């Protein structure tokens, strides 16, 4: 497993994991998939039941074709958002506005916290990351999330497993902000 630099101007803020069995870092891999019509069509056919449930829940009708089109459009918007952050080179253009706690019940931010990034409007695209420090994240993967819980489907459960593996790795190379842990313990 390698940590690849993604956004480095003006200070490094976003990294992505490249797993040893992949030639792509996780950010690159996911945007390749989300721009691949053949993959997307096959995905939505395979998850047709989930797409129907999602459509009912959100009171919107998504055919396979409409789902592919929405994914392409959402991927474009999400990528542009990241690209804007990358090109702004402005430390106040913080990633913390993009990434939130993975667990909706959590309110604190802490080291090695599992995080998710998504668009502000209703979208099934997710990118996942581990928070190392303020505005410092390592991206671990992404998914098309059609169900309420990640544990409900194999492809989203895989993303949880990947996050756990990355947390272990970051601990093993001592990438833990102990100072932040201490501040949390003291309630500062």
């Amino acid at each position, binding site marked *: 497993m390698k940590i690849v630099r993604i956004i480095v101007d003006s200070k490094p803020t976003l990294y*992505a994991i490249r797993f040893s069995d992949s030639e792509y870092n996780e950010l690159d891999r996911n945007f390749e998939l989300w*721009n691949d019509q053949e993959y997307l069509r096959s995905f939505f056919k395979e998850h047709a039941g989930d797409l129907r449930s999602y459509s009912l829940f959100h009171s919107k009708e998504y055919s396979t074709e409409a789902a592919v089109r929405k994914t392409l459009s959402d991927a474009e918007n999400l990528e542009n958002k990241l690209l804007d952050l990358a090109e702004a080179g402005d430390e106040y253009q913080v990633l913390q506005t993009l990434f939130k706690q993975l667990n909706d019940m959590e309110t604190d931010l802490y080291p090695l916290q599992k995080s998710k990034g998504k668009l502000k409007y209703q979208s099934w695209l997710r990118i996942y990351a581990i928070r190392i420090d303020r505005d410092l994240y390592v991206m671990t993967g992404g998914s098309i999330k059609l169900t309420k819980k990640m544990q409900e489907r194999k492809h989203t459960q895989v993303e949880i497993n990947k996050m756990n593996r990355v947390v272990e790795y970051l601990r093993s190379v001592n990438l833990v902000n102990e100072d932040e842990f201490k501040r949390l313990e003291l309630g500062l």
Partner: protein
Amino acid sequence: MTDIRKKIEEIAVDDGGKWLKKARYRRANRGWLRKSQNIAIRVLSVLDEKGMQQKELAEAMDVSPQQVSKIVKGKQNLTLQTVSKLEQVLGISLFEIPRPSFTTKVESKKGITANFDKRKERSFKTQEPLKTVVNGSYNPEEQKKSPLSLVKA
């Protein structure tokens, strides 16, 4: 730089900015990429409807299966020749260019006369395809008037 940032920089690697390059490319080429995506979506739908495999499409188009695979991923800058082949083999239309028209020629017993009505005027403004204009109404009474008076009306 804080200790934690120094630490991560010590072990981080570069991959030549792969994602950044691709993201910039996608943004700069968004116009034709979107057209390519639309073609891929349509081609995959028609293949499904016809129960046709990509391999069969490749054979019918006389191109390699790899070429078809690239087309259906929606990332290929297709030539007009390839688009025409796809249209011919699948029996579909992938491109329709709107054609503005002031007049529609209507065959009558007396010869060819021009006709122009409000619907066609709207059609021109909204750049609807020509076929909508052609289906516009034909009024034999108006046909008796001179083409110029019709335009003024």
